[in-house]
């Protein structure tokens, strides 16, 4: 790990002043569950590391008139246990609780979950986000069993965020703060598919800190369903988060977002729209799952993920509507 200066600001004003205009100068440290590994692998070599855990206002889950404000340094453990989150936003609580390692849940933060770098093994081994060599993708002709089935390239890694799909389904917003001021953007705009190596997979700028997540007042039924290969620490093979607003006995509107299938959380818009006006039954949930994976473009070793994603949608819908399969 390259040596760095460690800063421990007590206020956001101090913290944002310590960040730089370009990547590589400074990195924000929260739980450290990703950043420290990235630095060990020399994928991140910041000159300065800015610890934000001493900034009081970045913690805590607070109910506001508009909904819930979830601070960036809230740990995944706090999120999974929070009574309001569990009651009003099960999709979020499910996603946080789904991380199989208590050690990661104890340290890993909400902001860090959104800002973590892709787990793609080509990226982690130093081949870059797009893993291109001599103009060709190493992923499409290589070991791609855990890679994207949506998006069509040139990036084939999958977004590693556990909370991203749930936040998009819940129409949440994220607040980003720099020394120049704050901006609030919809969660769906936070995730970006990079087109070249100079861009990142998130909309955060190098001089910004993700300060909080804003979730609307709960009027939805929601759930997250993850398909995992093993019970120990790993990322899901596929996941789905759904949020349903009911209109009497039928669906008024539904948002279905797939996880771990594309470089960003992948909203299945048509499948959500198709559900409007229908009851959630085993049959309609299955049909929505089928619609959600319409147009998937699996690579040479990951066709199985299409089936997993389809099933994740079905099971998330049934869980959200509390229908027994």
């Amino acid at each position, binding site marked *: *790990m*390259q*040596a*760095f*200066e*460690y*800063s*421990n*600001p*007590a206020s956001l004003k*101090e913290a944002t002043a*310590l960040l730089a205009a370009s990547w590589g100068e400074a990195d924000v*440290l929260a739980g*450290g*569950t990703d950043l*420290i*590994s990235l*630095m*060990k*692998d*020399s994928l991140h070599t910041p000159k*300065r*590391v800015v*610890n934000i*855990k*001493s900034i009081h206002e970045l913690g805590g889950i607070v109910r506001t008139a508009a909904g819930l404000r979830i601070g960036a340094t809230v740990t995944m*453990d706090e999120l999974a246990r929070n009574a309001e989150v569990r009651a009003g936003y099960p999709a979020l609580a499910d996603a946080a609780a789904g991380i*199989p*390692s*208590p*050690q*990661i849940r*104890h*340290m890993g933060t909400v902001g860090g979950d959104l800002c973590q770098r892709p787990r793609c*093994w080509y990226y982690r*081994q*130093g081949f870059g986000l797009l893993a291109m060599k001599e103009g060709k993708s190493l992923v499409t002709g290589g*070991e791609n069993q855990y890679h994207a089935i949506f998006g069509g390239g040139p990036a084939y890694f999958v977004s590693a965020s556990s909370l991203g799909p749930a936040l998009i389904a819940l129409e949440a917003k994220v607040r980003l703060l720099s020394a120049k001021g704050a901006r609030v953007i919809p969660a769906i705009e936070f995730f970006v598919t990079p087109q070249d190596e100079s861009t990142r997979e998130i909309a955060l700028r190098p001089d910004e800190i993700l300060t909080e997540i804003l979730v609307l007042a709960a009027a939805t039924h929601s759930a997250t369903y993850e398909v995992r290969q093993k*019970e*120990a*620490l790993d990322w899901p093979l596929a996941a789905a988060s759904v949020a349903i607003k009911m209109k009497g006995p039928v669906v008024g509107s539904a948002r279905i977002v797939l996880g771990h299938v594309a470089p960003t959380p992948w909203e299945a818009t048509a499948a959500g729209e198709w559900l409007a006006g229908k009851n959630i039954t085993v049959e309609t949930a299955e049909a929505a799952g089928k619609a959600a994976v319409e147009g998937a473009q699996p690579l040479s070793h990951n066709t199985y993920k299409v089936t997993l994603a389809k099933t994740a949608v079905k099971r998330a819908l049934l869980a959200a509507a509390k229908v027994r399969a």
Partner: protein
Amino acid sequence: MRSKKDPDRSRQAKGNFSRRGFIRGVGIGGGALGTGLLENAAEAAPATAASAGPGPVPITLNINGKPVNLTVEPRVTLLDALRNRLDLTGAKRVCDRGTCGACTVLMNGKSVYSCSVLAIDAQGKAIETIEGIAEPGKLHPVSAAFWNHDAQQCGYCTPGFVMAAKGFLAEHPNPNLEDVEHGLGGNLCRCGTYMGVRQAVLEAARTLKTQGGKNG
């Protein structure tokens, strides 16, 4: 996949983790912590709120109930500080990427991967390692249960498993088998002794309860 040489290792050998520093660290291990040894204390700038490093800075860690002073670069992980500087080698460096659990310690009572915590960042927290969970010559009920159930083969994962189990039982004093499986999802055993580990944790839960519910 092709593996990449860890540039960290060679740099550390030249840098902070010198043989000299390691040998010096040995002297303050075990129960004799808190002697306040500082390496080049005069040269090292104190770790202020504003910034510290990149060179060595004096820090204070609270380990097994005792304050320990040491001087480390900000890049040094808690795991490396424990093992290389303080001779507390119970926590193991295996994956060193926050995945395997062999480096698990408790921080304010919660299990964490000490390989993924900076030592400088662990200041002000109560750190509990495998060395501190029982009196010398005695086994903690969790360790004793691991013994009783042959819950180790090579033993490399065991200190991490014991600490993870201790943290888990403090929060879940009455677990069932499924709770134990889920609660230890952050630790791997290459030898595959999971069956023994699960039974050991269930037994430790019973023992701790008959001892008045005190998990310590």
